[in-house]
């Protein structure tokens, strides 16, 4: 089967790989680029564990072909922390907003996308925004509080 040459930008760095036409962006990130922070949960767009930001839009990387990433800008969990953890990452630790941690990369990426467009979301707005990110451990309350506190911190820092 003919492979497709894909050139893209991942977390600010140029990246290229040869993709099978059926290969998802999720598989390419994990298996070709070694970025295993993005998780595969359901593989059908229901759980949000594979959330990434493509050209500024939050998407499930399992619902996008790797070939579709040609020329796009992709942000994954690996690009979130700089020298220090992102406020969202730090608040998730502070609030113990995770247990097994499998859903956490997707939730952090999704929450970051939310705060970029809405720096002061209500509880309800956070819950609806994150409705596509399933967590079977926490019961969500700690996640909501961590996002609220990170938002407050980021507003203060700005």
């Amino acid at each position: 089967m003919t492979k497709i040459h894909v050139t893209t930008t991942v977390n600010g760095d140029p990246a290229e790989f040869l993709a099978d036409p059926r290969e998802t962006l999720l598989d390419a990130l994990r298996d070709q680029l070694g970025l295993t922070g993005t998780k595969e949960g359901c593989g059908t767009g229901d759980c949000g564990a594979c959330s990434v930001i493509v050209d500024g839009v939050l998407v499930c990387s399992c619902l996008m072909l790797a070939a579709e990433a040609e020329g796009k800008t992709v942000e994954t969990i690996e690009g979130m922390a700089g020298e220090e953890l992102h406020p969202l990452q730090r608040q998730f630790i502070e609030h113990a907003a995770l247990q097994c941690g499998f859903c956490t990369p997707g939730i952090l990426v999704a929450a970051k996308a939310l705060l970029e467009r809405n720096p002061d979301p209500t509880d309800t707005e956070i819950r609806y925004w994150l409705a596509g990110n399933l967590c079977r451990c926490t019961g969500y309350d700690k996640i909501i509080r961590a996002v609220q506190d990170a938002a407050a911190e980021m507003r203060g820092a700005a």
Partner: protein
Amino acid sequence: MRYHKPTSFTDASAIAAAAPGTLRFLAGGTDVLVQMRAGMVQPDDLIDLKHIPDVGEIRQTADGGWRIGIAVPGVVLGAHEGLKRDWPGVVEGMNLVGSTQVQGRATLAGNLCNGSPAADSVPGMIAAGARVEVTGPKGSREIAVEQIPAGPGKTNLTKGELISAILLPPRGKNGGDAYLRFIPRTEMDIAVVGCAVNLRLDVDKIIEARVALGAVAPTVILSEAAARAIIGTTLDASALQALTSAAEAGAKPISDKRGTAEFRTEVVGVLARRAAKIAYDRAKGQGK
């Protein structure tokens, strides 16, 4: 699987017409990729339509209507002030599809061509009188949205044909539309029943109406009887009762894991009443 990236609808149509095996078009991919993963569909040819110019654009047409590109995702529709002002019912229907992540990719054209009778964006488009531009081997033509679905998972498009734009009519004065669905939770579920109402007023009296019912038949259906029940009225109690009865009578649902036929029939009447009231208030310029 061959992955194609045509740069015109004519080319896309030619590739599709010549495809020997299983073919799928790719816009947002939120249904196609799930079907591929589940093994339900293994395309021999996949035609990605996102390299065709203007498929991501929303443009107002000369007559005041709207031309929506086939790759415009829900998140873009939901952020478009002009569309939300003119056709809030169409936008709210699309925005009920899936999660934030799915909204980042899913499209009106995909929701329509997936052929689900429960598709949340389709009743709103049908009630609005939306049309689609179809490009095929013999050129392009315009047809009404309600003529696309043929049954669960099936459309009336023939080999080599594809939707090349969604066309919403001019809103005009004193009009309003709304879409409501019932699901057993608040988010991330498939409609058990859906209903869209679009109407126009002359002062307080309804002079035009279209009512579309979702998930109560093999396709989304346009109920002319439900529309007749409220045309000429001020949406008073007796008109609402007539609308309820007509919507119930128009429903031909099945019983499945999401709801029984009896339940769906009852709920479609309730949703028709509520959606009509919202559309009426919007036409009066009250409420969102």
